[in-house]
């Protein structure tokens, strides 16, 4: 099948996948706290409500920026599955995240602004990882597109154990899980109120949710890249990683941004950097 069709399928199906993932997440989290939790489709009800609710615009520039955030997040997945170069995907992924920072920084609310600054810090913390991860995948398989990596007869995951561990760090940030959810305080009623999204209401907040679902699906696609010999095993690995994230989310308190930056960079430098170095030294 033409890779372009895969790209289009991502744009259409990723929100359903991401929404269901958040639904399962909320139920599992509730069960961990001895509660029953909301229905599985709750994230979709929330999004439906947000799209119908009045949107209070503090700065009119926020809306186009948030739309760009969703479009670029969807485009990142579409380009990845559509067969674009992996390094290019890593860069456009960073660009998509940057639009959210710009939107949150466009208002004067101190919570929103502090959230935007912290989001920049976590972007800084996890971008080197994605670039190194893509470089390692290219090195192991000799391929630089999604389809070619999956078609390669070289198994990626067994050769990159360090990257798999560092992936957990970065996924905690990207999935906005405690202790690394410093920019949003994902559970409401805490420290930064809702950080980045404090000044977004109605459909503006809906765009952020939608982009987050795309982002979750994208992380799943990255996991499949690492387990390139079998898509079901890649999905299973993502499910295990996500279950670990929920456990960590429910059992830790939020870290300070300094700790997030340092620990993620140490993980990136030692685990990922060491892994990439080993690949180049051994595979020479």
């Amino acid at each position, binding site marked *: 099948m033409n890779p372009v069709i895969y790209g289009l399928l991502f744009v259409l199906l990723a929100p359903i996948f991401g929404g269901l993932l958040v639904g399962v997440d*909320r139920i599992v989290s*509730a069960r961990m*706290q*001895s*509660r*029953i*939790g*909301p*229905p599985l489709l*709750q994230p979709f*009800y*929330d999004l*439906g*409500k947000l799209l*119908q*609710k*009045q*949107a*209070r615009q503090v700065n009119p520039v926020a809306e186009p920026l948030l739309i760009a955030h969703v479009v670029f997040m969807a485009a990142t997945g579409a380009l990845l599955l559509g067969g674009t170069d992996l390094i290019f995907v890593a860069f456009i992924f960073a660009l998509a995240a940057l639009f959210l920072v710009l939107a949150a920084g466009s208002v004067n609310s101190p919570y929103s602004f502090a959230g935007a600054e912290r989001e920049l810090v976590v972007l800084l913390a996890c971008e080197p990882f994605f670039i190194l991860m893509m470089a390692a995948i290219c090195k192991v398989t000799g391929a630089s597109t999604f389809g070619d990596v999956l078609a390669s007869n070289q198994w990626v995951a067994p050769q990159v154990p360090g990257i798999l561990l560092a992936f957990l760090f970065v996924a905690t940030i990207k999935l906005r899980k405690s202790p690394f959810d410093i920019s949003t305080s994902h559970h*409401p*009623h*805490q420290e930064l*109120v*809702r950080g980045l*999204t*404090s*000044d*977004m*209401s*109605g459909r503006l*907040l809906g765009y952020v949710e939608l982009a987050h679902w795309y982002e979750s699906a994208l992380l799943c696609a990255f996991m499949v890249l690492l387990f390139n010999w079998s898509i079901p095993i890649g999905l299973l690995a993502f499910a295990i990683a996500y279950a670990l994230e929920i456990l960590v989310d429910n059992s830790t308190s939020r870290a300070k941004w300094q700790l997030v930056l340092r620990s993620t960079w140490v993980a990136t430098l030692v685990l990922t950097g060491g892994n990439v170095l080993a690949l180049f030294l051994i595979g020479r």
Partner: protein
Amino acid sequence: MSFFSRSPWILHYDGSSCNGCDIEVLACLTPMYDVERFGVVNTGNPKHADILLVTGSVNERNIEVVQNLYRQMPEPKVVVAVGACACSGGIFARAYNIQGGIDKVIPVDVYVPGCAARPESIIDGVVQGIAALEQKRKKTA
């Protein structure tokens, strides 16, 4: 049922409450009552909220705060007054700095009686608030 009745996000504000009702509001979130079953989220942000839950009466110092929170909430929105003090001022009604119930400063849609209001009646008040929210949405749509 529309999306509004399935996803009511609540902002809780404590006026001059003795904290009796506040504890009962928080009890609604515990495993015993677990209002998240109905999609309720206890948000700390007026811009994300659909229902303003006020406990305690209004005093001279927090009139502006209550009005400000109410103004910041996007339409459609509903106010639920929880407990005797929020409904009428309760036993503090004649105190020198107390204005009275919440309806002295912002329009109230649902009154939940009790001192302190029980979690069951608070949840019932929120459910009635959802019905009011639905009516307001139909009017604006």
